[in-house]
């Protein structure tokens, strides 16, 4: 454990951010050739690639649902994505995260438009520096958009942590490991819908209530960037068409 402080006396975090400031986030849409939709995100030093396949025929067939599409998510960390080499075999953490990410994105998709099909969301964490599930969910929303899948809203996600007794928005790895708590949320702003909520660490009831407000603000910040990324992507495509 280091004795180095993570927040300075004037409220600046060790990477230069204010308590409620996000890292630099860059979304890119349509980056993979062989998928139906894809997105790439750089979220500070966290780098994640998401590919969507589908709606396509369900495999195995008996898992297909007669009234809606089946959504599956596969969250995997590359063996080189963390400081120590990680076995590429899925860990229990990756199994759990795949489940909660699927459940975070599911409510946004009009699955009833694609009965008997599967929509598979593949997530590869290339470099991890905290909040990978939040970055993955936010990027996966854009990959679903890129795949042309109708959605109720985008799902934006971010985490609030408690570090040295103070609530901070958008937790990076060091703050997650050395801080007192980590609370990620995924959110569909137009429905006020919380589609993922987890917490580990120790917070008071009052800190929970303040965290929810901060999470809403953070998700709206991410939501704005997601919309900008969509606009930028389709604008580029338009100008390409004009040239051709």
């Amino acid at each position, binding site marked *: 454990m280091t004795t180095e402080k993570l927040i300075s006396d004037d409220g600046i975090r060790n990477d230069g951010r204010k308590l409620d400031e996000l890292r630099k986030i860059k979304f890119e849409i349509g980056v993979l050739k062989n998928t139906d939709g894809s997105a790439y995100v750089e979220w500070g030093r966290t780098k994640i690639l998401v590919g969507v396949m589908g709606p396509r025929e369900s495999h195995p067939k008996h898992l297909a649902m007669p009234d809606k599409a089946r959504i599956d998510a596969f969250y995997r960390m590359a063996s080189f994505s963390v400081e*120590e080499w990680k076995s590429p075999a899925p860990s*229990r*953490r990756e*199994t*759990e995260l*795949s*489940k*909660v990410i699927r*459940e975070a994105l*599911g*409510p946004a998709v009009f699955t009833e438009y694609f009965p008997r099909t599967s929509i598979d969301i593949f997530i590869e964490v290339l470099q991890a520096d905290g909040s990978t599930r939040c970055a993955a969910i936010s990027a996966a929303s854009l990959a679903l958009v890129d795949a042309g899948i109708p959605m109720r809203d985008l799902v934006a996600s971010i985490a609030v942590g408690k570090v040295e007794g103070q609530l901070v928005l958008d937790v990076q790895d060091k703050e997650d490991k050395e801080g007192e708590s980590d*609370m990620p949320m995924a959110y*569909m702003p137009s*429905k*006020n*819908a*919380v*589609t*993922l*909520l*987890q*917490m*580990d*660490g*120790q*917070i*008071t*009831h009052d800190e*929970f*209530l303040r965290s*929810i407000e901060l999470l*809403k603000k953070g998700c709206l910040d991410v939501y704005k960037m997601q919309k900008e990324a969509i606009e930028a992507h389709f604008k580029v495509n338009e100008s390409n068409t004009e040239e051709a």
Partner: protein
Amino acid sequence: MKFEIGDPFSDTPDEGVMQVSAEFVPFASPEFEPGKPDETAVELARVVDRGLRESKILDTSKLCIVPGKKVWICHVDLYILDHCGNLIDTAALAGLCALLSAKMPEVKVKGEAVEMTGKKLPMPLSGNVPINVTLAKIGDKLFIDPSFEEEEVLDCRLSVAFMQKGDDEKSLMICAMQKGEAGYLTTDEAVRAVELAKLKSQELRSLVSSKVNING
């Protein structure tokens, strides 16, 4: 609970290890299939693990035998024998009570060798008792302690673990949360669910303290 002597993790060389696992026995439900734990079992084990771990009820620094070499591995193995709903809260309570009532073997270190003395020692517990309470959302209502049938139709659930040190209500903190299943909650529903979980956790805490000593 079972104890075994093993290697520490490289990032915590002087600490013992607590490992929670869940086995869904096939006769517990027609939905369960034999084989490796599936994602539901993994989630259950990890949610129970999170409540126990984050409450710091178990002082793992006291589970070190030879620093950097030999530590106690404490296995908390949850076996689901008959599934009638609300597995998370039930398994969390069972895991907690097992931890509170467990005795661990005493060892003596002689040079390189570790010998069992045959005696049993109390566990190094902090008295921070986590209680998990799950709320199921069905339509616009929140249900506490969902039954199997209620779980079949729920939109989603929110599990919240509240911990408290001994009898000191002022020390009440949230130490773990997990939303599960396909639907969503509004932020107001999430806030309400946490309030309900807080109330109910106190009731369950007095039930636990009437059965086992919770003061560590």
